């Protein structure tokens, strides 16, 4: 089966890439375009480590076909920190919200989608926003604290 061209914006830059039929967006971003910030965890849509934003909304890159995002705007954690640490990234550091770090990229993108939509979330809204992202190290509390603190800092 022949490869097909796909074009979309990745962290603000126009990108074009050839994909195999059925290739998912995660593979396309990581191997095709060299941005390894979205992580390959379960590959089954369970863990959330591959979370990227498509037109500002969180999606699982491992369950999204590359050909389905033609013309869309994709944001990853690499773009989040392109001009110095984002307030969320800084807050995650300050609150020790990462241990092994594997879930962190996905957590940050899910959190960014929340704060962009709702700059002053409640604790329950933060918990709901990261409900699709599994962390096996922190017990979640430092992550929730960090997201709430980042919201406060952005408001300040």
């Amino acid at each position, binding site marked *: *089966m022949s490869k097909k061209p796909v074009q979309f914006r990745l962290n603000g830059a126009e990108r074009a890439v050839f994909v*195999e*039929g*059925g*290739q*998912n967006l995660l*593979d396309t971003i990581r191997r095709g375009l060299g941005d390894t910030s979205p992580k390959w965890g379960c*590959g*089954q*849509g*369970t863990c*959330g480590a591959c*979370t990227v934003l*498509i037109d500002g*909304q*969180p*999606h*699982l890159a*491992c*369950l*999204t*076909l590359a*050909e*389905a995002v033609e013309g869309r705007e994709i944001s990853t954690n690499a773009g989040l920190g392109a001009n110095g640490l984002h307030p969320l990234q800084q807050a995650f550091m300050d609150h020790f919200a990462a241990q092994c770090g594997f879930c962190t990229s996905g957590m940050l993108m*899910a959190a960014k*989608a929340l704060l962009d939509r709702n700059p002053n979330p409640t604790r329950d809204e933060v918990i*709901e*926003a990261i*409900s*699709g*992202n*599994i962390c096996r190290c922190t017990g979640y509390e430092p992550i929730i604290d960090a997201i709430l603190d980042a919201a406060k800092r952005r408001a300040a």
Partner: protein
Amino acid sequence: MYSFDYVKPSSLQDALDAISGGGQPLGGGQTLIPTLKQRLAMPEALVDLTGIAELKGVSMSGDKLSVGGATRHADVAASAEVKAKIPALAALAGQIGDPQVRNRGTIGGSIANNDPAACYPSAVLALGATVRTDKREIAADDYFQGLFTTALEEGEVVVGVDFPVPEKAAYQKFVQPASRFALTGVFVAKFAGGVRVAVTGASQDGVFRWSEAEAALSSNFSADAVPAAPVADGMIGDIHGTPEYRAHLVQVMTKRAVAAAG
């Protein structure tokens, strides 16, 4: 992943042509893509239905609330029309899975798959909705036919779901906290002609109507009127809960749903 063709038609007719040529309809892919990854299915082509405008969105059609088959859960949850007409349906859609799932998953995909622990089948059945396909209209009571089984024929596409507007309704879900599927979920809907109660997540046969509760609630719509828990025979037993536990949850979640409906 194995290699397959992908097409994203913008008209239903083009989609149906591609499907009759052997393509597999694709909604949001939140179940289908993992299924392909596990090689439990290996279609040669996927036909993405989410680019078809007539399959998307919410509108009133006569006295029914019509939801297009390719409408995402996030869009149903956020729809002012759904919140105004059937707030319980908007609330249900807003509790499906997690934000990532709701941003891709579609109502047509959910009810075509008919997972025994999915949320949407309970709303479709309790509200007595009509499933509209490219070929016909199917009453909810005829549509759900057991575990991952529906009245849909091979290649038949869910174009939309038409929901009668109830006097009152509520959905209460006991969440399986990891998957966020319903460990048991109950949708209660009160109409002028009576009450319908549909249960998901509990039975080995998938979503079902709890007729004893419907009879009791039709004469007295209060949580106290909910009958004793149904028998545990035929309920799902797994690491998350025994059949007895789920049978108990059916009663508890029905009471909560009646109380929430007010």
